[in-house]
């Protein structure tokens, strides 16, 4: 009796499953051939962008910034009489499965021409896969995984933020300028942490062959107490501690570096160590002297273009833009420039126009590299310092994109695998 009930249930499930599958197939078949536009150069239809991003939860602070940056770009383009861009947003709650289902909904029901967003790297990769299947171009301005435009890259995905390969290489260049030989690697035990550290380490061993790895520590995401890690690393007496950790863990880690007095004994490197998102919550407990890399600060680079961007952003949203605002802003600007260049609503033509496209941005000239669709922008490096009573960065240097981008050969090799 019990078994029969079970069978009946599973039969029903199979039936339901196949029904869903058929619906999905039919729907996706319809979705891939929406209104083909005719080449009307004089009057372009507005381009519709579907944004899937994390608007609730711990990462919401980044998605909010990138969306505001994008909105500002759309407004500026429209003010100058450029192509019209419309957008809709969906909240994926930092869950990759939701990112894909929203992406599908946006393409099928909302009939968007472009997809964008996804702070969650796994979500970026999932949406990218769907973009490839449905041939709807996808602009990533949130996910940092190097796989997005690297091993898993394709014609329909673009990235307007530096990924972990670029961050790792920039860190390696910065560290190669120091005399530290014995290195301890540490980080959060998940995709971002391992990816940054692996990239940094493989680049550093190439640039500076003498370096020696003393050991590694990996903590769980959401670790609250870093003192046992720091005490253990300190006792091993490395020359420098190199850390790949993000979000809330980054703030807690920096706090522990200060509380344990580690920085007086041991140099520390961490990406985004002097980012406002890290320093603002720390108040006066920021550890001075921690080295780091960062692609953007509202007061660096100190150029007229950046000042104008900060001014415009402040006027619109009453706060200073952080790095993710720049990424969303660049996403919008690239799209606008590409539509203008293509002079068409045809997605394939816009992609062609986007490949190798260069535009002026707050951080200087930015190019979407033709071969891998990865944005090339400069990266700064420096140390945390108190300047005029405020914690920020000093000794800032700029690395040019050529110094920190992974080579095209390496990308193509990874994709061929």
């Amino acid at each position, binding site marked *: 009796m019990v078994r029969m009930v079970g069978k009946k249930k599973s039969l029903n499930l199979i039936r339901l499953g196949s029904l869903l599958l058929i619906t999905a197939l039919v729907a996706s078949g319809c979705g891939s051939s929406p209104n083909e536009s005719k080449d009307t150069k004089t009057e372009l239809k507005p381009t519709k962008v579907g944004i899937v991003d994390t608007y*609730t*939860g*711990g990462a*919401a*602070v980044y998605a*909010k910034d990138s969306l505001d940056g994008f909105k500002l770009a759309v407004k500026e383009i429209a003010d100058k009489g450029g192509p019209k861009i419309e957008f809709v947003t969906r909240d994926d709650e930092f869950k990759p499965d939701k990112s894909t289902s929203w992406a599908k909904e946006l393409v099928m029901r909302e009939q968007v021409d472009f997809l964008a967003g996804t702070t969650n790297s796994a979500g970026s990769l999932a949406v990218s896969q769907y973009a490839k299947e449905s041939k709807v171009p996808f602009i990533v301005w949130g996910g940092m995984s190097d796989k997005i435009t690297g091993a898993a890259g394709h014609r329909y995905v673009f990235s307007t933020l530096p990924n972990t390969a670029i961050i790792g290489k920039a860190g390696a260049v910065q560290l190669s300028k120091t005399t530290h030989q014995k290195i301890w690697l*540490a980080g959060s*035990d998940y995709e971002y942490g391992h990816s940054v550290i692996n990239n940094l380490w493989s680049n550093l061993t190439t640039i500076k062959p003498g370096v020696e790895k003393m*050991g*590694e*520590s*990996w*903590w*769980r995401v*959401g*670790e*609250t*107490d870093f*003192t*046992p*890690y720091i*005490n*253990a*690393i*300190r*006792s091993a007496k490395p020359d420098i501690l190199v850390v790949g950790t993000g*979000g*809330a*863990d980054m*703030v*807690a880690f920096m*706090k*522990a570096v200060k*509380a*344990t*007095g580690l920085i007086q004994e041991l140099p520390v490197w961490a990406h985004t160590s002097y980012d406002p*998102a890290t320093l*603002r*919550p*720390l*108040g*006066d*407990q920021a550890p001075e002297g921690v080295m780091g890399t960062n692609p953007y600060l509202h007061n660096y680079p100190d150029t007229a273009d950046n000042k104008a961007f900060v001014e415009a952003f402040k006027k619109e949203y009453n706060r200073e833009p952080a790095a993710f605002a720049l990424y969303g802003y660049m996403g919008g600007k690239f799209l606008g420039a590409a539509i203008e260049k293509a002079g068409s609503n045809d997605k394939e033509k816009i992609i062609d126009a986007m490949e190798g496209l260069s535009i002026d941005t707050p951080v200087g000239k930015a190019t979407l590299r033709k071969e891998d669709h990865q944005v090339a922008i400069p990266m700064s490096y420096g140390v945390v310092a108190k300047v005029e009573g405020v914690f920020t960065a000093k000794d800032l240097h700029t690395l040019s994109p050529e110094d920190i981008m992974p080579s095209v050969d390496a990308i193509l090799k990874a994709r061929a695998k």
Partner: protein
Amino acid sequence: MDFATLASQFFIGLSRGMIFFIVAAGLTLIFGVLRITNFAHGALYMLGAFIAYSVSTLFGQGPYGFWLALLVAPIAVMLVSLVIERGLLRFIYNRNHLIQMLLTYSLVLIAGDLVKIIWGTEYKSMDIPGVLRGSFNLWGASLPWYNAFLLIVGPIVALGLWLFLSKTHLGKICRATATDREMVDVLGINSTRVFAMVFALGGWLAGLGGALIAPTTTISMGMDASIIIYAFLIVVIGGLGNIWGALISSIIMGVGEAFGILFIPSIAIIIPYMIAGVLLIVRPSGLLKSAW
């Protein structure tokens, strides 16, 4: 590996264990007396940290802010617990465990959204008070003052709980209720009042744990999920409902993890589960006698 490193790592682990104990003691007390699997215990801990942040910020993160936060936050969480117990939990004592779990789990979700509405999504941080900043020299290694402070607070809380449970009339009723609930009812004692009090005490402990951890870390949504796993592991290892079991297993967990981080740092993430696995193989029903 010199002696100083081992010693400092031991004390750091011990102070980590003290936070575990304060949180797990509340959970195990509720387990033992109310027989409820309180998933929301981590949420109460998170609430404690956020309230501590607000109180301390109100005083400009000044020297008094922390001490006041340490006093106010646990009491505020205790009041919230009292409302939860009187408003929700008391209606489900006679229902099965699944219903109880569902209710406490829904409280986790509600607390998560509530925190987001009240405090927003930005990361929060609270200052360590001036007198507890920095570290001191311990046979050549260094130990942060705040960890030393936790090493004082932990035993005080343990001692207080012991005095309460073994020396006071109410405490004796609590222990009796944990051992044999029907017998307590038969003796004419109002056991629902005991339940309310124990749940409030458990909430106070969770809030205290949150307030104590707040200055050392980032106060953010999701901090409830990371503590509740430890708390459940500790409660199960120690023996369900047994406070002294929780104390012993907290210390084993804290110190064991600290030494794991020292000796096998690349796989530190699995150490708590290794400890729990080994201890449960050796003593499947927990280190000390379970109340269940």
